[in-house]
């Protein structure tokens, strides 16, 4: 076996690639790897990438060949590339583009140069119902409505379809991006990475562009990407956001950064059912139905207007019914936005086939170095369980144990201590249990936002926090997603949802938006030592360290003794 210790990469037979972060060749190798491998873990020192069929098809869709990948491996790898990896790459790359979805004389056709492949798939029991007519041994037609379904089925049997059938043009909507922001008149310009992402997605207006997912870390300006792409196409657009707060933030951003005014923007939510050239809705309302057996009435929104572009915000949360509808509107241009393609339900391949391949990805660490997102310091503080709760905890059921340990009142001492340390900062106190949050809110004399807080009240409090009138905000899990609080730079998590990795990342995401001054954010997680709280915290902690966040662990006593933390 040849050994090149001067190289930064180790290619392993399980299809993972280890990359030494401190190595001088790291950046070059990383840029090459990102073209065809998914970043799986990024703790200090070593990052782990994985090549999957999807990542290879994504690469193939952007013109990367198997020879290029193997050449990159040979160039950067410390050891010989395992033979199974070479074969796997060749096999997967060769699959992409073998099947094409084209449009001819108004018909949608699946076509290939390989008659055996066509024979194989036309005999597949999942494909057969979707075939409209087999024209010859190299092509068959499908119904326009099955354009998404056929792609879904074929990717599941290992053959991704290159969809070059093009799109229907939507109704036009003319607008432009502002040179200066409406809110404060500051100049508005795209960052370089945003330009790159937009150009890759737009692909000069060709059929190869117009669908796909752009992956950017929290706080890196995904909303702005959406606005810029809308501006490129100038079509009427449907935007799907995660919840009502996010919906309104989209609305505010559009008004602030484009020539559109609020009258041009429709809100399709539980409260309003407006349909306008730019309509913003939520996944909640899309999947709303009175009874389980009822239809999803609001899904009709997709067809109520001749949309030219549909934007899926936080695409990793896209619910299954929306997927199903999306399969039927494949002639529309589709943009997915997310910070992570990892889906807890494993439906990444549906995102690939129905929204589109990943078109752009930039490691958050790069943006952090460039100052576009804040540097995050995670600190776990271990608090002992209050003496009076020890016996109660000892005899409690498991689920109750978690609650008792999460609500440990000694955590409040630490909160006070941290607030003294961060008296100039904008602090979010985030928790799971409303009773606990109420006590904290009262003790700190800080407002509390929960699911029961009315939307106007929320808007008002968020507004005050943004403009600096409020320095501390206590929030429940309603704040996990898409609250744009640019100036929050300290988050204190007093309790979490068991081991939810996504929640921890989302909560951290609340404070990652770039800050004035030192551009640094602090995320404190208060954990009751040697309890269920700590057990679950370990899982969340591992996830964050894998995402590359620096993590420190301190003891309650040390913090109270004003030790530097």
């Amino acid at each position: 076996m040849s050994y090149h210790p001067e190289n930064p990469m180790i290619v392993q037979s399980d299809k993972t690639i280890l990359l030494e972060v401190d190595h001088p060749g790291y950046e070059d190798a990383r840029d090459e790897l990102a073209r065809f491998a998914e970043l799986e873990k990024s703790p200090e020192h070593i990052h782990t990438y994985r090549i999957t069929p999807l990542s290879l098809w994504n690469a193939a869709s952007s013109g990367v060949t198997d020879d290029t990948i193997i050449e990159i491996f040979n160039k950067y790898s410390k050891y010989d590339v395992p033979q199974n990896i070479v074969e796997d790459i060749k096999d997967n790359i060769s699959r992409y583009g073998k099947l094409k979805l084209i449009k001819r004389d108004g018909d949608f056709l699946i076509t290939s140069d390989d008659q055996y492949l066509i024979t194989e798939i036309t005999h597949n029991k999942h494909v057969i119902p979707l075939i409209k007519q087999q024209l010859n041994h190299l092509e068959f037609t499908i119904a326009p409505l099955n354009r998404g379904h056929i792609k879904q089925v074929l990717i599941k049997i290992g053959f991704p379809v290159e969809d070059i059938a093009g799109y229907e043009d939507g109704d036009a909507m003319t607008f432009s991006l502002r040179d200066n922001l409406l809110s404060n008149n500051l100049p508005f310009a795209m960052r370089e990475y945003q330009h790159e992402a937009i150009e890759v997605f737009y692909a000069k207006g060709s059929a190869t562009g117009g669908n796909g997912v752009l992956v950017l870390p929290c706080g890196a300006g995904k909303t702005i990407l959406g606005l810029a792409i809308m501006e490129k196409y100038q079509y009427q657009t449907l935007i799907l956001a995660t919840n009502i707060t996010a919906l309104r933030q989209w609305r505010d951003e559009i008004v602030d950064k484009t020539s559109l005014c609020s009258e041009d923007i429709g809100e399709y939510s539980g409260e309003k059912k407006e349909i306008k050239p730019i309509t913003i809705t939520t996944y909640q309302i899309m999947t709303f139905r009175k009874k389980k057996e009822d239809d999803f009435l609001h899904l009709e929104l997709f067809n109520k207007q001749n949309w030219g572009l549909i934007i899926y915000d936080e695409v990793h949360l896209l619910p299954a019914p929306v997927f199903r509808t999306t399969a039927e509107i494949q002639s529309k241009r589709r943009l997915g936005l997310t910070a992570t393609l990892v889906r807890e339900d494993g439906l990444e391949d549906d995102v690939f086939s129905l929204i589109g391949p990943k078109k752009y990805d930039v490691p958050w660490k790069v943006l952090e170095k460039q100052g576009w997102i804040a540097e995050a310091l995670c600190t776990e503080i271990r608090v002992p369980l209050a003496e009076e709760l020890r016996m109660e905890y000892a005899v409690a059921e498991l689920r109750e144990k978690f609650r008792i340990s999460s609500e440990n009142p000694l955590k409040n001492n630490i909160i006070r201590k941290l607030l003294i340390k961060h008296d100039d900062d904008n602090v979010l106190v985030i928790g799971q249990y409303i009773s606990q949050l109420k006590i904290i809110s009262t003790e700190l004399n800080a407002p509390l936002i929960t699911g029961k807080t009315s939307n106007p009240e929320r808007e008002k409090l968020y507004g005050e926090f943004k403009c600096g009138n409020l320095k501390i905000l206590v929030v429940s899990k309603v704040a996990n997603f898409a609250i744009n609080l640019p100036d929050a730079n300290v988050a204190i998590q007093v309790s979490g949802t068991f081991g939810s990795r996504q929640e921890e990342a989302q909560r951290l995401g609340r404070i990652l938006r770039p800050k004035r001054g030192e551009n640094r954010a602090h995320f404190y997680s208060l954990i009751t030592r040697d309890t269920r709280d700590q057990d679950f915290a370990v899982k969340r902690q591992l996830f964050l360290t894998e995402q590359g966040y620096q993590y420190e662990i301190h003891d309650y006593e040390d913090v109270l003794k004003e030790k530097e933390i």
Partner: protein
Amino acid sequence: MSRYNLPDYYETVEEALMEGYTAPIVKNICKLLTAKPPNRKSDMVASICNSIKGDGLRSIWMRMDNLDQTAVSEIVHSYENQFDTSRFMAKYGNVPYTGSLSEYGERKPTLINLLIINGTMPEDLKVRLKDFVPKPRSHTIETQNDVSDTHIQISNDYDYKSKERIEVVNEIPMINMETQNLALQDVLSVLRIIDSGKIGVSDKTKKPTEAGVQKIASILEHGDYYESDKNGDSSEIGHIKAFAWPLIMQSAKLAELSGSKLKLTKQGQKALNTPPHEIISILWNKWLGTTIIDEFNRIDAIKGQKGKGKRGLSAVSERRRCIVDTLALCPVGKWITVENIFKSIRALDNNFVVTRDEWSLYICEPRYGSLGYDGSHKWEILQGRYTLAFLFEYAATMGIIDVAYIPPSMARDDYYSLWGADSLEFLSRYDGLQYIRINSLGAWCLGISESYKAAPIEKQRILKILPNRDITETKTPFPHSEAIFLETIADKTSDKVWKLNPDKILIAYEKGRSVEEVKEFLLAKSEHDLPDTIVSFFNDMIRRNRLLSDEGNARLIKVSDPVVALTLANDSRLKDLCISAEGGYIAVPSSNENAFRKKLREMGYGISVS
């Protein structure tokens, strides 16, 4: 030793001539000194004694040739009066005849037969000769600085075309192995693999099982001496180092049998944290006295070592002492051929016997193949093969000597003439050993040098410990000993990545390994400081472990009335002997059980058998 084998001892030359020789032989000796010897034996002896009076003895010595003079000087300046022909031959390559003479034989006596009578020098002569016979030269062990990369092997073949015998010259690559560093790494690897409970040994012989040997071979640095190849010669050779290590560990009581597997003893656990050269020193010294195996048993082709044959075998510790005494006189850092080692063992008066009963040992078949026949039990066959086994399998495995070797097949031809040896590729698996060299570790263990300066341990920063508990190997080849250790604390998740497994660490902790040790290991091997999350991970574990301790067994007694249970547990006579438990139970530590029962009876309570 049988009285019949006692060496002759003569007080005076007169006594020796009268008792040791017949009249015709005395007459022939007398003729060497006087032209007209007397007729009667006693007169002849008197005449000879007269001739060697005063300066006569010196003039006789002066008339002797160089070889004879050397033989005389060897006896005169030794503690013995007997002439050791084997030793003399080894030292000088030739030997004068000093054995028994017969009047009918063709061998005529020479002057040396006057001074050495039937192999023995009379005491009075020895005393007088000491005045003028110079001391013999001491034996010099021949050495060389380097060994060749190849070994020239000459064999005979038959050319059927020319119908002539031809000489075939083969050039065989010589493997030159510096064993010191290998052994220093192997010793830890072997301890760790034993600790992992994967090495099976026979409960009767203490020898490792085939699976155990394979396992050890797989973790040795550079593997065993010969690669195992089931289709080739080496499968017959078998493992050498991998066979030796479990025995070496057991002999020093660092490992012992537990069920069918080896486990580390307390000393073994301690050894894991001892500098490797110190462990080697302990192992070596223990090995010299061990009876766990007779290395000669490993010469598989020589049968008859069990039963009656076993009784004839000499004490192994004495054999080892002879070899080790010889090694201790070898120059350090110089290559020495095994032939020179063979010679030196004898020349330095460190000769030994393997058996007192050569007739019980045999090749192939007990009668025809017996090694009792003249020429069958020559030194190289018995002592030589024992020496090779000891040096190659044990001394070199422990890193005492470096070795240069070739495959054993046809490496030595000294056994070809033995009956039944025709079908053997080699007489022993150690026949390929060609050269040895005492290295610095060996010099220290053999007492040649007073101290051993371990090579500065280059801190092997071969791991990256990540905050998410991943451990990545960053160097190749990754040392086996480290891999074995990691196996006990982490799961291998891919080719180069491990993940710390708290369950495994706790199991290791319960077996006696400290969590601090694990932490120190990672710290020593890590290219960076341990991440905060990892430090906390270990600190948590250490703190939690301190909360619980094993206090031994106890008997649990159920008292149907909880109040009585509480009363008994708090009674002044019982409270120091038991512990009150929840739910009307009383726990009585086993060590207190008898006293508890006695007190209970005194109080009028008995415990029913459930």
